[in-house]
């Protein structure tokens, strides 16, 4: 029974809350739709937190999404053991730098008075949930390899069965508890997402990546303006 709760009911609750609450928050509290920056308050420690955390997490997240949307491509790539090892070792390294980044973020938030002041309870919950997610993910990668292959064969069919509203939990119920923890915590994170700073993921100014560069011109003499004071 509790398997049905965790793998056939929790996912729908999480997805439902995610959908309804992200839209509701965007419509009613539009200006809270961001991640409050604290870079101006402290920036020595900030680099070694934010940069490895974001690059690591994005890479690992895209590997998971590839397993969901193009499982056949992943399996074809993994058909040669060397290529499989490259995927897994890169994924593990990215997860490790995510954890290093997260560790630095948490230490900075705890250690610096100004940063701690602007850190809310929901921020701490987010750090705890992401901490559990990253650590359990690393444990799965190390002790229950090779997830890049078995995600595509066991978890992808289960996830699609959820989207088709015919959950087939047989794919997941017999997996090791560490894998189940990783899955369940992921749904908890998705359900909690709309109430946290994580909403900034949905409003990343992606066009910055491809828009044309903007040239800033001064139509006054900068040296004159500066020398006034």
């Amino acid at each position, binding site marked *: 029974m509790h398997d049905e709760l965790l793998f*056939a009911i929790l996912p729908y609750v999480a997805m439902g809350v995610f959908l309804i609450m992200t839209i509701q928050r965007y419509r009613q509290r539009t200006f809270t739709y961001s991640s409050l920056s604290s870079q101006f308050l402290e920036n*020595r420690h900030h680099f070694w937190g934010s940069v490895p955390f974001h690059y690591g997490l994005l890479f690992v997240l895209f590997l998971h999404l590839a397993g969901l949307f193009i499982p056949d491509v992943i399996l074809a790539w993994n058909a*040669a053991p060397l290529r499989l090892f490259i995927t897994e070792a890169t994924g593990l390294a990215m997860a490790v730098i995510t954890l290093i980044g997260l560790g630095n973020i948490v230490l900075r938030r705890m250690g610096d008075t100004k940063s701690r002041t602007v850190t809310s309870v929901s921020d701490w919950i987010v750090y705890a949930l992401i901490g559990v997610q990253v650590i359990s993910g690393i444990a799965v990668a190390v002790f229950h*390899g*090779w997830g890049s292959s078995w995600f595509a064969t066991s978890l992808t069919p289960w996830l699609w069965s959820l989207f088709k509203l015919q959950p*087939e939990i047989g*794919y997941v119920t017999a997996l090791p508890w560490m894998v189940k923890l990783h899955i369940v915590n992921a749904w908890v994170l998705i359900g909690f997402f709309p109430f946290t700073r994580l909403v900034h993921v949905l409003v990343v100014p992606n066009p910055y990546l491809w828009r044309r560069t903007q040239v800033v011109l001064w139509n006054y003499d900068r040296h004159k303006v500066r020398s006034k004071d």
Partner: protein
Amino acid sequence: MLVEHSERGEAMGKTTGRWTLALAAGLLLGGTAAAQGASDEAYEYFARNCVSCHTIGGGPLAGPDLAGLLDRRDRDWLSAFLLDPAGVIDSGDVYAQALLRDARGVYMPTPPGITADLADKLLTVIAVEDGLDKSRFAGLQLSDRPLTPVDIALGRQLFNGTTAFASGSPACFACHTVEGAAGFGGGRLGLDLTTVYARMEGRKALGAWLGAPPSPVMAPLFQDAPLDADEILALTAYLKHTSESGVEQASSGVLAFLLTGLGLAAVLLVLFDVAWKDRYRSTRRTLVEGRRSPRLASRAVEGMEGTP
């Protein structure tokens, strides 16, 4: 609950259709298996859940040959055993204890989703099949020919995934390792298969197991995409070969894998340090300090001009 309902609903829909057909056939021919109460559903259940350990007239595998089963024990006893094998064994039943000894102490798992009704239908399937000259459940017809180095090589390729299974089933390497596997070794979701050939006591039982893997993780992947007999023979050859390597389990690649991951992570951090040398992490501080040191100030301004 959602699952059970939807699956049952679907199964019931199918069964109704099949029953209509079966009934028509039964009326025409008289005395077919269906008319005697052995439904298609029970046949399908037997094929999916029982044949990896049992034959009907093909000799014992992990479990006993079921030929003559209903002569050996009465229906009530068999039905009770099917509903709860471990319970009957642990109750101290003498016959069940003997079965446990024959199976080298391995308990028969409770058949998934078993009900009294299904148990009764399964016993009918066994009785009907036992009455035939040759049951369709006489066991996988795996060749008895000697296994060659060519078989072993093909088995290794199938295990590793470098040669794909015809049915598109996932390669063993994703979840299992064996002694002699390349690099960091095979996956560790499932068991180390180095000695599985010896544990299953040979080609026939291992082959039957591979023909319809009953483990809860593998069953959903293989029940609609089974391996063919040639693939099973090659895998059996490879696993016999690893079993004879003299080691109990594969040397673990876990530490090497972990160290590689940590090493790569360190390299990435160094790359980050180089790539963002003059950006992000020190803009404001260098500007402030630059009020005192002209060298730092000029560096900060150069850095600023590089940023969009």
